[in-house]
């Protein structure tokens, strides 16, 4: 589904990704962990097409297409969803209106009829249950005045509405209390259907107790330096990153 080869990317002329290789197959859940500044969020931004990030080398293929050639909206329409680390506020635009526009754009790109208000409302009500959203939230302006937890729930709700084939969760767990974390994780798990793939970027192992990954990767200095199963996450929780850093730095200096 997603193949990343030797990806190098920089922001404001500072190189962050240093030849990253990575593959995601349908239905897989990959967790990406790593110390601060290792390039986790850069990876999410590059995949979504944020323009401040310049790809200097490498390729990213998504379902046989060159993802890097696509505009952000075309990536979204092709099925790449990014749950933002910092969801953006759009005053005056209701969540429902925003989502209806988005859903119908995605449908249009697939040659499907636009949903009318009634159909849309019906689907929306179903999906709201997934993240325990109440109705009032759909009428509020996109993310405006939302608490941190509400914003993250809203991201998962949007994901449920847009039904992507690949969802990238960028530190969706940061700043959440345990209840909010459980709600968000339940939402994500409900969307795991064996076909949909996930890249879960996180700083904390505890999210992985709820969203159990197939693979865990450690990103350091813009590269994946270690991969394993969920046990690797537990090991990191216990021992921190220093042992990996030392290992890598030793190899680099050798």
């Amino acid at each position, binding site marked *: 589904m997603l193949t990343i080869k030797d990806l190098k990317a920089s922001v404001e002329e500072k190189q962050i990704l240093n030849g990253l290789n990575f593959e995601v197959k349908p239905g897989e859940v990959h967790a990406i962990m790593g110390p601060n500044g290792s390039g986790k969020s850069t990876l999410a931004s590059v995949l979504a097409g944020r323009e401040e990030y310049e790809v200097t080398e490498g390729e990213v293929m998504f379902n046989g297409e060159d993802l890097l050639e696509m505009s952000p909206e075309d990536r979204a329409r092709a099925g790449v969803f990014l749950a933002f680390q910092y969801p953006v506020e*759009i005053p*005056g635009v209701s969540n429902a209106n925003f989502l209806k526009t*988005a859903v119908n754009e995605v449908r249009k790109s697939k040659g499907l009829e636009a949903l009318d208000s009634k159909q849309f409302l019906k689907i929306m009500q179903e999906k709201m249950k997934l993240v325990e959203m109440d109705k009032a939230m759909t009428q509020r302006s996109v993310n405006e005045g939302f608490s941190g937890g509400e914003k993250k729930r809203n991201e998962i709700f949007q994901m449920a509405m847009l039904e992507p084939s690949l969802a990238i969760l960028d530190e969706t767990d940061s700043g959440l209390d345990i209840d909010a974390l459980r709600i968000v994780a339940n939402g994500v798990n409900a969307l795991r259907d064996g076909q949909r793939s996930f890249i879960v970027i996180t700083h904390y192992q505890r999210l992985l107790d709820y969203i159990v990954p197939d693979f865990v990767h450690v990103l350091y200095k813009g590269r994946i330096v270690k991969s394993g199963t969920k046990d690797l996450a537990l090991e990191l929780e216990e021992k921190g990153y220093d042992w990996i850093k030392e290992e890598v730095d030793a190899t680099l200096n050798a």
Partner: protein
Amino acid sequence: MSDDLKILEDVANSEYKWGFVSNFESDNAPKGLNEDIVRFISAKKNEPEWLLEYRLKAFRHWQTMTEPAWPNVDYPKVDFQDIIYYSAPKSKVQLDSLDDLDPEIKATFDKLGISLEEQKRLANVAVDAVIDSVSVKTTFREALLEKGIIFSSFSEAVHEHPELIKKYLGSVVPYTDNFYAALNAAVFSDGSFCYIPKGVRCPMELSTYFRINSAGTGQFERTLIIAEEGAYVSYLEGCTAPMRDENQLHAAVVEIVSHAEAQVKYSTVQNWYPGDKNGKGGIFNFVTKRGICLGYKSKISWTQVETGSAITWKYPSVILKGDNSVGEFYSVAVTNNMQQADTGTKMIHIGKNTSSTIISKGISGGRSHNSYRGLVKINKSADNARNFSQCDSLLLGDQCGAHTFPYLEVSNKSAKVEHEATTSKVGEDQIFYCNQRGISTEDAVGLIVNGYCKEVFNKLPMEFAVEAQKLLAISLEGSVG
């Protein structure tokens, strides 16, 4: 400039959708302005002597005045002798029903998307249509008359209700008020008149559509709305003009009188031809709109969505004379390409416990300039007066300008006046967020701008709000550069 925004630049500027010319014959006055023209207009309309006298006084006063130079707009000097001051569609006679309407005029309204037929079917909007200078049709008159509501063309009201016209004409905007008000008082050709008797709530929206059609003409309509004690009316105004290379002058006057506990809500969607991308042609819209809250708890509310005109000079105002009276101003002003707008409001607090609210949203794109100019004046007598103003500007390119000129004059210590203003651009992070959900940059800008204007759109009657949103989208095409 980001790639996202470049996409928008590539979007071709859509043509002005309302820029067709209708081919019905007009009955024109000769070009130019002198006392004879004033007499000609008055005679054409078979006016009583007192009204001719009023016009002549106004004309003589106008001759002593000079055009205002203080607005933050720049335009070639208007040659007032090169304008036709009276132009009526020739086939126009008293019409008894819509079926008698000239098919061309009817087609015009169809093109405007305001089919009178449909309006009639909807049965909740009464329409008075003014083409060039004369009112061509007022619908629902009879239905309204049953409640004692008078809704007619200004000319008819002069003949049928001279006592009301005599009493109120120029009572809110005297001809001495300003250059364009004086000009209008001298040469106004028609307009709408509306009278809501005591305690009556007007059961439908009243609406006037204005259209300038003939070349070389100016339009000088005059609207007078009177709400007696405890009355209520919601009044809508829409305007369009054909695309022409020359500038055309529109100098209207609107006067509103709101008596004790009466409420008048006046909504405008202004879409005069703005000129082409290079600033050629377009309407000069120099309008004086003012209402007076005469009694206890009177209320006047102005809502405007301004997307048209090459030059806009307009300050719908409220004089809050009655104690506890309320004035409101909600405005969205969009300028694109070479348009210039200097618009805002004046809230003059005289009565005790009076309050006013000003919400202004300016959006500038292209090489346009958009200025908010507003006065909040708290007189010494206005104990406990309250004002809240919020004036936001949104910039959609680096070639345009946004300006805010509020004047806050407070002479009463118990008053509370608050003003806030911000200027910002559409956030790239907002656009990216929309992109990431599959929404194109163009649609994202539309969505964000509509959200930004929501507080004002919410004040418009439903059908108007939809129209306003569409207008906004069209006006903004190609605006982000």
